[in-house]
């Protein structure tokens, strides 16, 4: 129910006094209301829930979090041996 999907704003327009956009999700384009993210520009990524953009994706934060996760194993290798059991369980997927 709280499903929300990030998509790229490809066009912004006015509809009966409301700021709307065409938002691209992979190969699909849908309309979304931009009233709650007024600072959004074409090219930005927004999180869309039931036809409303509820947040603008913070690209710098997305990059920072991903880098942090990418570098996790370096921490792991520094701190402790990898748990063999996990690797074995994971391989069965």
């Amino acid at each position: 129910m709280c499903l929300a999907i990030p998509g790229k704003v490809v066009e912004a327009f006015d509809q009966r006094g409301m700021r709307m956009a065409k938002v691209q999700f992979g190969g699909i384009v849908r309309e979304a209301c931009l009233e709650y993210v007024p600072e959004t520009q074409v090219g930005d990524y927004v999180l869309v829930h039931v036809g409303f953009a509820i947040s603008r994706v913070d690209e710098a934060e997305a990059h920072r979090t991903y880098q942090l996760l990418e570098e996790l194993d370096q921490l792991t290798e520094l701190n402790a041996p990898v748990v063999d059991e996990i690797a074995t369980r994971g391989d069965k997927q």
Partner: protein
Amino acid sequence: MKYLDEYRDGRVARKLVEEIHRVQTKPWVIMEVCGGQTHSIVKHGIDYLLPEGIELVHGPGCPVCVTPLEMIDKAHSIARRPDVIFCSFGDMLRVPGSDGDLFTIKSQGGDVRVVYSPLDCLKIARANPDKQVVFFAIGFETTAPANAMLAWRAQQEGMKNVSLLVSHVLVPPAIAAILQSPLNRVQGFLGPGHVCAIMGYREYEPMSARFKVPIVITGFEPLDILHGTLMTVRQLEAGRAEVENQYSRILDREGNRSAQKLVCSVFEIADRKWRGIGTIPKSGYKLRWEFREHDAERLFDVKEIDTREPAICISGQILKGIKKPHDCPAFGTLCSPQRPLGATMVSAEGACAAYYAYGRHLKAERENSTASLVGGAA
């Protein structure tokens, strides 16, 4: 898709899983609040990847599940009226009331329509000035701004043929109710990412401090959930109890101010009954008096309907994290998504329905073969 695919990367997931195994030394019970998170966990088999000492229990964050049967029956009695076009999100159509579901009503000639956005109701109302367009406004804080915008626009445009049947619920009172229960087992929470995209996470801070529980606001993709779990376990192992934000690419502490502002001008806090749990004080929204002309409960004199849930159903205990779906004798036998007996089976995001969809009703028959189930029937 950008911002989705990278958070489903199995290689990074494995690093996270290894780190959780490394950090965890004691048993912990962690609740993911949101039904969307539950669905993701069961779909990707995330709970099977965690150390045995970490138990994920499934929270009450599925609005379709917790909408009380009385409200479903009210919706159905309105949807049956010949002067009404009844609009709803698709999730609500299969939820059975005391006498059938919205699909049944549609098949019997009721004008029931699925909408993608609440704003679709405005278009339908303009095209059908002789009909009353009623929208079934359910949801958590995530959906409240969209539903509030419908009421706001209807009022601004003087559209008297648009009304809302409101059954809105709020997450923090439900978390507080779980923590206050004498049977509570939950020691840490994966907080609801999209609810907090609207509300921010300030309101979780006093709760985390008061009950001494870590609350990590978490996203919905597999890496988000593993990362949120790791952050929660780190706090628990270190004896910390703070609110942290795993989902920083989407939200900050303050949330979406302009959405909060409109929600506040359309809705006010009200007591709400939660299916499977009961009435929680100040746990939902109702329309403000100024919007009474758009309140379907006022416009249609719907009688209070007394309903009873089947005694065998343990959904209340599942929603509070006390029990799991396969603890229920009816799970997968008397109760299935086709014939749900209670809250947690009625929506795809309910814990029982997610367990069923990914083959976990078969687990009881294949006990002790956990490893072979990794990945499930997904």
